[in-house]
Each structure stands twice: as C-alpha cells, then as structure tokens.
C-alpha cells in the first residue's frame, strides 16, 4: 500500500509568490516513513518554501501534497500534526522551558499528570532534566536548540520538519547537535524533513538528500551516491570539492567518453553521464582526493604545475595548473610515501576513468 510506504508525497507542486516567478517548479517527491530526508540548496532555491508548504504556512499555487495518503492542501497547520523546529528556535520567551514543552500537550487537552510525565521524558531525552523551570533566555544556544527539538517531538508527531535548525550555532556545537538529532531520529523512528544549506550537515545526517537549485530538484539520492555519482554539474560543484576541466567530446564508447581538454590538447577518458554527443562541450568533474600524483599506472595521465601548497596536517592541499585551469586541487595524503612537491615544479598526475565524470556545462 502506498499509504504505508510514504508519509509525504508532493505531486507536481508549484509555488509562486508574485504570479510572475515560480519559486518552486514542479516538485515531486515521495518521503518514506522513518526517513531522514534533507532538502539542500543555496538560499533562494525553493527548499524552505517547500518546507513551509508542507507545514501549511504557505499554500501551494498548483499541485497537491499528501500526508499519510490524504491531501492536505486545505488542512490548516494546527491540524496537520507535524512537529517543527524553526531557524531561531521560536521558543516562547514568556514561558519556562517546561511550559514551552507542555504547550502542544495542553492545546491537545492532555491532563496535567500526562503533561508533566511527557515533559519530563522529553527533557531527559535531550539531556536537560534540570532546566524545566528556566526561561529560554537563560539557556545557551545549544540548550535552546535541544529544547526546540524536544518541543517539536513531545506530542509524538510522525513527521518533524527542521528549518536550518543549527544555523545559529558555532561549529563545534553544530557538529555535536548533528549527531544528537541523528541519534534521536534513529531512536524514535520519526520521519524528518530537514532543510539546510550546509552540505556537510546534509551528508552527515541524511538517509536521502534532495539537492535544490532554481526551484528544481537537481538530484535526489543517498549522500554517498550524491557525492560519488553527481548527475549534473551543479550537484558536482555544490556537494563537496570538485575539480572542473572544460573540454569537447571527441568520441563516445558505451558508457565512457573521450574528451579533448581545452588549451592543452590532451584527450582523457571519462564516464559519460550528461555530456551530450560528439563535438559538444562538456565539463569534467574529478574529486581532489581521486587524483594521484607521480604515478604512471593511472588510466589518464597528464602533467600539472604546482602553484600553491597548503599544509593541513592530515593532508597537503596542492593547487596546480592543469591545462587552462589554475584551480586544479589535489589532496595529497600526508603519508610516508607522499610525493615531495615544490611550488613551480611540473609533476605527472593521473586518475582512473571511473573517477572522472563528463557532465553538462554550467552557465555562469
């Protein structure tokens, strides 16, 4: 049954605020029960709008959203039973932490004893059992964050939405909270739709990631698939670091393409993912950690001139000139065997054909 598989379904959803520009263009997604799905994208890409439509704060201009198989376009937000964590937590400043947590229970008419028990359990879940009597303003950012999560979960919704919940925290706290939220998700089995513009956050936490750009989902896949097999140039450049080389397709041979690089004239092999036919322009994408230096057993062999070396402890970041690109980055692991590089030296580099993906050309 469809109803059992999917908790949320977006069907051909479009959204426009002014009747001229579509902020969300034809959005389709099925969110599985118990899934942690992240909507990732630059600001203005439509991801928050999708979340607001799901929460009920923005009406869809076209299309239908289903929750548990029921269309919810005409259901007001307070009847959707979806928990939500807001960007700046939106904890009610005039209530104590315990009152904040009791709010969703009280509006549902729970008895005082039930309220107290659930609030206590929720506070223990986020490891703040002593903080019930404090005001939100007396808590640190991380504590407020945990209270906000607890409040969104205390009434046991099946689905929780999180709108950039960690944006206001500093880096260490953010990483700690990522694991904490992930842990809560796994323990409770609740479905989470998470919005962020931070790709590392998305990669760490999600079961699946929907990468948004320009109102369209560019790719919807598991984190490792997204990172290792980006389907287009936007995803390749948005997720993780990427070396881009421009060239022209000279031959297509099944799943691989031969690409003649601009400037240097060398021809390399790459996986033909989205590169069009022979004679068309393409962008090659290679992860910095997949490039090898100073070895000659690689599928593709080129040479690069070292422009800059940055020592980062566990690895050395080497910026090179390869063909016409001066921004070609190689991550050299800091091992005993690592190549001794000097700025200005020309050194052989190479990579496997499977690690190089021929993609569309980004207009920029």
């Amino acid at each position, binding site marked *: 049954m469809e109803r059992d598989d999917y908790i949320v379904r977006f069907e051909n959803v479009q959204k426009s605020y002014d009747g001229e520009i579509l902020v969300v263009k034809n959005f389709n997604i099925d969110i599985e029960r118990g899934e942690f799905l992240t909507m990732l994208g630059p600001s203005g890409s439509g991801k928050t709008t999708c979340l607001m439509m799901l*929460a009920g704060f923005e009406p869809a201009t076209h299309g239908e959203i289903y929750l548990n198989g029921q269309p919810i376009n005409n259901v*007001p937000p*307070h009847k959707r039973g*979806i928990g*939500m964590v*807001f960007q700046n937590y939106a904890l*009610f400043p005039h209530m104590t932490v315990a009152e904040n947590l009791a*709010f969703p229970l009280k509006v549902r008419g729970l008895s005082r004893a039930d309220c107290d028990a659930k609030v206590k359990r929720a506070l223990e879940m986020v490891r703040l059992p002593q903080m019930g009597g404090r005001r939100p303003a007396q808590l640190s950012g991380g504590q407020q964050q945990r209270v906000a999560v607890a409040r969104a979960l205390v009434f046991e919704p099946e689905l929780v939405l999180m709108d950039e919940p960690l944006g206001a925290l500093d880096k260490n706290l953010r990483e700690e909270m990522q694991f904490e939220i992930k842990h809560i998700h796994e323990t409770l089995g609740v479905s989470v739709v998470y919005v962020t513009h931070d790709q590392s956050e998305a990669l760490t936490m999600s079961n699946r990631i929907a990468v948004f750009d320009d109102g369209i989902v560019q790719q919807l896949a598991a984190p490792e698939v997204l990172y290792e097999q980006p389907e287009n140039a936007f995803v390749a450049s948005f997720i993780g670091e990427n070396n881009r080389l421009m060239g022209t397709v000279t031959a297509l041979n099944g799943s691989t393409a031969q690409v003649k690089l601009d400037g240097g004239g060398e021809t390399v092999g790459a996986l033909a993912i989205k590169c069009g036919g022979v004679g068309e322009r393409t962008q090659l994408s290679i992860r910095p950690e997949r490039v090898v230096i100073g070895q000659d057993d690689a599928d593709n062999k080129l040479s690069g001139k070292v422009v800059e070396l940055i020592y980062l402890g566990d690895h050395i970041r080497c910026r090179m000139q390869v063909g016409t690109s001066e921004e070609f980055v190689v991550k050299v692991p800091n091992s005993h065997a690592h190549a001794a590089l000097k700025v200005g030296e020309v050194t052989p580099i190479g990579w496997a054909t499977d690690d190089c993906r021929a993609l569309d050309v980004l207009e920029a």
Partner: protein
Amino acid sequence: MSTMTDNQSGPMLAADGTPLKVSLARALRRQKIRAFLLIVPLLAFILISFIAPIGDMLFRSVENGIVPETMPRTVVALEDWDETSGEAPSEAVFAAFYEDMKVAMEEKTHTKLGSRLNYDTAGIASLFRKLRKPMGNIDETQPIKPQFIDAEEDWGDPEVWQTIKRLSGYYTSSYFLSAVDMESTHDGIQMKDDFERIYLTLLWRTMVLSVAITVSCILLGYPIAFLLANLPLRTSNILMILVLLPFWTSLLVRTSSWIVLLQQEGVINDTLVSLGILDDQGRLELMYNQVGTIVAMTHILLPFMILPLYSVMKTISPSYVRAAKSLGANDWTAFWKVYFPNSVPGIGAGAVLVFILAIGYYITPELVGGTSGIFISNRIAYHISSSLNWGLAAALGVMLLALILVFYWLYDRIVGIDNVKLG
C-alpha cells in the same frame, strides 16, 4: 615590578606605586569633566526654567507667611485666647490688631491678607476691604474692642478670630485640606458640608475618565498596531503617516473639529436626523459632557498608544505564532497564549503614557467637557488664573503629582517597569 608580586595583599597598585583605583579615577577624571561640561547648559536651563519654578510653585501649597508677617502682634496676642470659648478675644488682641492694621493699610497689604483668610472662611475678605471704616474712627485713648464691634459688628464674630488664629503659622495644611474637601475647625479636622465638596469628586472623575480613555485607546489601538506590524513595510509606512498625522495637527484644531462633529447641530446629529434615526427633538448630547471628553481625548491620545504597541509588536517574531500553530494551537489560541503575552509590554508602555497624559489633560476637557466632563487640571487652571488662590492650585498639583507617582509605583509592582518598551 615588585609591587605586582603574587604574595602582595591589600589594594592593587599601579606601576608607579599609587593604588590602581586612584590611578584609574585620575585617568577618567578628564573624561568625566568633559562629559559634565557638555550637559551643563541643559542642566542650567532645566534648573532655572523647570525645576526651580515647579519647586517654588509646589512650596506655595504649604507656605503661609502672609498672616504672621502682616499681623505679627495680633498673632502673639491671640495665643492667650481660648478659641473654644465662643466669645470674641480680649481688648489686648484688638489693640494689637489695630496696630498691625495701621501698618498694613499704609503698605496696602490688608486686602491681600483678607483674600488669604477668605479662602478658609468666606466673607472675611469684605471685612478687610471695609477696614477703613472702623479704623478711621478709632479713638486711641478709649478701649478699641467696643469701637471696632460698634462700627462693624462682624468683628465680634469669634469665627473670624478662629480663622486668624488657625492660620497664624508660617506653614499651613489648610490648602491640602481644602484640596481633599476637608476643613480644620475648632472642633478638629472634618469633611466640608456636602454642597461644598468638589475636589474629591473631581479627582475621582479625572481618574475614572482617564482609565476609560486608556481602555478605549487600548481597544482601538491594539488592532491598528497589529495591522501595522504585520503588513508589508511599504503599506505600513503609508498607514503610519495616517497615525502620525494627528501629531502634526494643532491640538486646538483637532479639538475644534470634534466640536463640529459632536455638537447638537453638528455633523453626527444632523446625519442621524436626516437618516431618520433620530427625530429633531431627540438629538444626542455628545459633547459638553463626559462622552465628549472621552471621545476627543481618545482620539488625541491614540498615537501614544499605537506607537509603543507597534514598536513592541515589530519585535515579536512571526515564527512564534507559526511555532504555536505547528504545535497544534488554532489561530485564537496562538494569538492569545503566545502573541498577546509578548505584546503586553507594549500595552503597558502605552497605557502608562496615555494614562499619565490623560490625568493631567487640560485643553480638551476645557473645550468639550462642559461641567460634567472637566478634569482636576481645569480646576487648577481656574485657581491659577481666575480665583488667584495659588496655594490651593499648588496643593491640587502636588496631589496630582503624588497620584501619578503612586500609579507608577503600582504599575512597577504589578507589571514591572522593566517590561515597558517605548521603542
């Protein structure tokens, strides 16, 4: 740097051995002097033009120098007189009074004295105005008391002398007693007769009307401020001009336009009559009463409610209401349990502002209040400019000031002054 060693006890020392606090104070002195010099002109201006005159005015509410200074001998002689005897004082008092009045009439201060005594006992002023008649015919070789009473028998009335004796001190509570409709008689302090009471009623009315005005400002201003705070900035700016427009219009013009609207032959009554809702005989009395005062003052003070409310509502994040709704609250619960409590500091600030302004308001009640809609401040103005009883005016003013301070204190206890946000 031996002075900075760890085992040193006592105050911290600077590098040159002076205590650090002294050294810091010296470093900051120049800054403090410069800051003080910058505020000196304003401070002087406020002292001269504001604090000193108000202090002097308030002092008049207890000051009573005129009686002991104009009739020093009489005051001393009256000390031996038993005011409860029901008889006029002795010959000695009259002799002293005669001496005092000779001086007073030369200096022409006797009528002023009469006016002062008249505030406490009506009728004395005319006795002193007609003083020339008994004084002119006195034979100094004969006893003075019978001559006085023969010429003007009211001088034999013990009440006159009771008044003089009561007011013989340099300071008096009589203005304050009058201000709360009380009087001091030889039987002690008691309420005035019913028909003479006016100020307590007036004070009560001032408070009740001010509360009514404050409440109607809250009821009218809250939705407008809510609208302004939640509309897009472009639209809200245009509407804000409409709110501020009254600020740029003269108070008199605004009050007068209410007269045009509210009077019996005015726009509202004419419209109601022409629509057939009222018949010509039954025109509503909308002004020269409390209705007029409340309507006009609510309109005039409304911006003082809307502006603090607006600035507080602006700071309430829309995500609070969204959060409340996502947690299952319907529109009304989200407003009442989440939005409204966060807007209370704005209501508090607006209410304090409107109430304090209303309680001391003068022009509007004067113009549209008639007799039933006037405030205590209109009475103060009357005593300042018409009856010239500045002492009573000052006493009423002190009471008004004290009342406002009491309200302010109450408000601080109940709402907390920290909760007031003016912007």
